[in-house]
C-alpha cells in the first residue's frame, strides 16, 4: 500500500472526516441543515440524494471552496474552515465537470498537477507510475485529453486527483454523463483505488445503484441527512418486504387494505405500496378481500429508494408527496 501524504493522524481515534451541525444558507434558500457526517478511514462513503438536495454544496465546503453559515468540519483533525491549505494537501478532488485541460496530454495534465502541489515530478514519480499502471494509462501518456473517450477521461481525472497522495478522495457526481458500461468500469476502478492505493473515498451521487455499492450511505433530502448506515442496515430497517399493488383505483384499494387489515398502505405514483413481514402470506388474502380490484401484485426486497420514501414521505425523483399523485 502506498504511503499517503501524511500518514500520521493528528487524532487517531477520530474518524478521518468529521462534519458536525453544518448549515448553509444562500440568498433565500437553506442548502444544508444541521448536517452531521463521519467518514472512517478506508471506507467508501456515499451521499445519496436527488438533484438540488444539497450534495454539491456539501462537496464545496469539504473541498474548501466555500464557507458554510455555521457548523464545523474536520479532516484528520484539521479544521476545513480555518486551515484550508492543510486540508487541501490531504484531499484529492474530482469535480462534476472535468478539470482536465483538454488541450494538454495526459502526461502534461499530471505533470502540472504535481507542480501545483509544489512537488517536482520526480518526487512523485513512484506514486505516479503506480497510479498510471493501476489505472491502465501508461501506454497513452502522450495522447491529448480531447481525443480520449469519456470513460478514459474519468480515469485521467482520478490519476490527477491522486497524484499528491491524498488521504481522502472526494468525488462530486462522478458517474454523471457516463454510460452504464463506463459506470461499471468506473466502480471497479474506485474499488481498486481503495484497496491498492489505500485512499478513503467520499462521493455524492443520485444513482441508487451506485449508493448500493458504498460501505456506508447518507441519504440526503432538502439539505438534511435523513438516514445513515450501510445499505444493508438501511434496507433492513424497513422491517420486511415491499408489496406493490397495481390497481385501477389505487386510493380505494389502499383505503380498504388499511381498514380491513390494519396495515399502512401508501400510494406512490399510482401504485399501492405496503411494507410488511411475511408479505407473501398476504397476497392471497388481499386478492380474496378485493375481488376484481387488483390488477397485479409484486413482492420485492426493499431498495434504497424504499428507504428514501420511508424517510422523506416522497419519491426519490419529483417532489410529490405520497398519496398526492394517484
Amino acid at each position: 500500500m502506498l504511503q499517503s501524504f501524511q500518514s500520521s493522524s493528528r487524532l487517531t481515534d477520530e474518524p478521518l472526516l468529521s462534519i458536525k451541525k453544518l448549515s448553509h444558507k444562500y440568498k433565500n434558500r437553506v442548502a444544508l441543515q444541521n448536517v452531521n457526517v463521519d467518514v472512517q478511514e478506508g471506507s467508501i462513503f456515499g451521499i445519496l440524494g436527488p438533484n438540488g438536495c444539497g450534495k454539491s454544496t456539501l462537496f464545496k465546503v469539504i473541498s474548501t471552496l466555500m464557507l458554510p453559515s455555521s457548523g464545523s468540519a474536520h479532516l484528520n483533525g484539521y479544521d476545513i474552515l480555518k486551515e484550508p491549505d492543510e486540508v487541501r494537501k490531504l484531499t484529492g478532488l474530482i469535480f462534476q465537470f472535468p478539470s482536465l485541460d483538454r488541450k494538454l496530454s495526459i502526461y502534461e495534465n499530471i505533470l502540472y498537477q504535481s507542480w501545483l502541489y509544489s512537488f517536482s515530478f520526480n518526487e512523485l514519480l513512484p506514486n505516479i507510475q503506480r497510479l498510471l499502471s493501476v489505472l491502465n494509462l501508461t501506454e497513452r501518456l502522450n495522447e491529448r485529453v480531447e481525443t480520449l473517450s469519456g470513460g478514459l477521461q474519468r480515469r485521467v481525472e482520478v490519476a490527477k486527483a491522486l497524484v499528491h497522495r491524498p488521504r481522502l478522495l472526494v468525488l462530486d457526481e462522478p458517474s454523471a454523463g457516463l454510460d452504464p458500461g463506463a459506470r461499471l468500469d468506473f466502480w471497479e476502478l474506485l474499488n481498486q483505488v481503495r484497496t491498492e492505493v489505500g485512499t478513503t473515498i467520499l462521493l455524492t451521487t443520485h444513482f441508487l445503484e451506485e449508493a448500493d455499492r458504498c460501505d456506508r450511505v447518507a441519504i440526503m433530502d432538502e439539505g438534511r441527512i435523513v438516514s445513515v448506515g450501510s445499505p444493508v442496515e438501511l434496507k433492513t430497517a424497513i422491517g420486511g418486504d415491499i408489496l406493490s399493488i397495481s390497481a385501477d383505483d389505487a386510493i380505494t384499494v389502499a383505503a380498504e387494505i388499511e381498514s380491513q387489515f390494519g396495515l399502512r398502505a401508501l400510494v406512490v405514483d399510482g401504485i399501492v405500496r405496503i411494507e410488511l413481514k411475511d408479505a407473501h402470506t398476504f397476497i392471497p388474502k388481499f386478492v380474496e378481500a378485493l375481488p376484481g380490484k387488483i390488477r397485479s401484485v409484486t413482492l420485492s426486497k426493499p431498495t434504497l429508494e424504499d428507504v428514501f420514501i420511508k424517510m422523506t414521505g416522497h419519491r426519490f425523483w419529483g417532489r410529490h408527496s405520497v398519496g398526492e399523485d394517484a
Partner: protein
Amino acid sequence: MNRTLILPSLTIAQRELLRFLRQPSRVVGIVGSPVLFWFVIGSGLGESFRFPSAPPTMDYLEYFFPGTLVLIVLFTAIFSTISIIEDRREGFLQAVLAAPIPRSAIVLGKLIGVTGLSLLQAVLFLLLLPLSNISVSFLAIVSTLAMVVLVGFGMAGLGFAIAWRMESTQGFHAIMNLLLIPMWMLSGALFPPSGAATWVWWIMQMNPLTYNVAATRMTLYGLADEYMKDLPSIEFCLLISFLFAVGTFVVSVLAVRKRPQGLPIIDRR
C-alpha cells in the same frame, strides 16, 4: 520567495502559453483584427490626419502604430482572461483553486502567462514596423517590448479582476464594449489629447491607458522624437503604468482570496 508561490505560478503561466500555441486560430484572431484596423484606418486617413506638434512627414499609419500595439495587448488580455469565467466553474481552474497554494500564486501565474502571450504577439506585430515610417533602433525595440510587459501585466490584471466577478461571458462582453474598448479609444491611441474637446481631454488625463500608450509611443521612438513634447514625461508614464499593474494585481488577489460564505441562519425556536 518560496516554492509554493513560484512553482505553481510558473505552472499556470506555462499552461497558458502551451494552450495558446496549440490553438493557432487564437493568434490570427488577436493579431489579425488590430493589424487590419491599423492598415485600413491608417491608410484610409493617411495624410488627412494632422495634429499640432507632429512633423509634416508623419501620416496616420505611423501615428496609429503604437496605439495598435496597445490594442493587441488589450485584446490578448481580454480574450485570455474571459476564459476564467467558465474555467473556474467547469474547468482546469477548479483544481487550481483547491490546491494548497497562496491565492496570489494563482493570479500571478495567470498574469505572467497572459503577459507572455502579449509579448509574443507584440513581437509579431513589430515585424510590420518597416511598413510604417518609424525608424527604430535595437534599443528602442527592446525598451518597447519591456513596456509591453508592463502594460500587458496591467491589462491582464484588469481583465482578471473583471472576469473574476462575472457570472457569464456575456457580462464580460458588455464590459468590454462599454469600458475596455472606450478606454482604449480615449487613450491617445486613435487621436492625441491636445486637439480634443475639454471633457474628452479630462477623461484622457484620468485614463491609465493614456500613460500606457504614451510610454509605448515614447519607447518606440527612443524617447527622443520632437513631437513627444506634448506627452507627459516618461517617468510619470512609467509610474502610472507601474501603479496600474500593481493595483490590478492586488485587486485580483483580494477577489480570489474571498471564499464565498453562507448567510447567517436565524434560529426561530
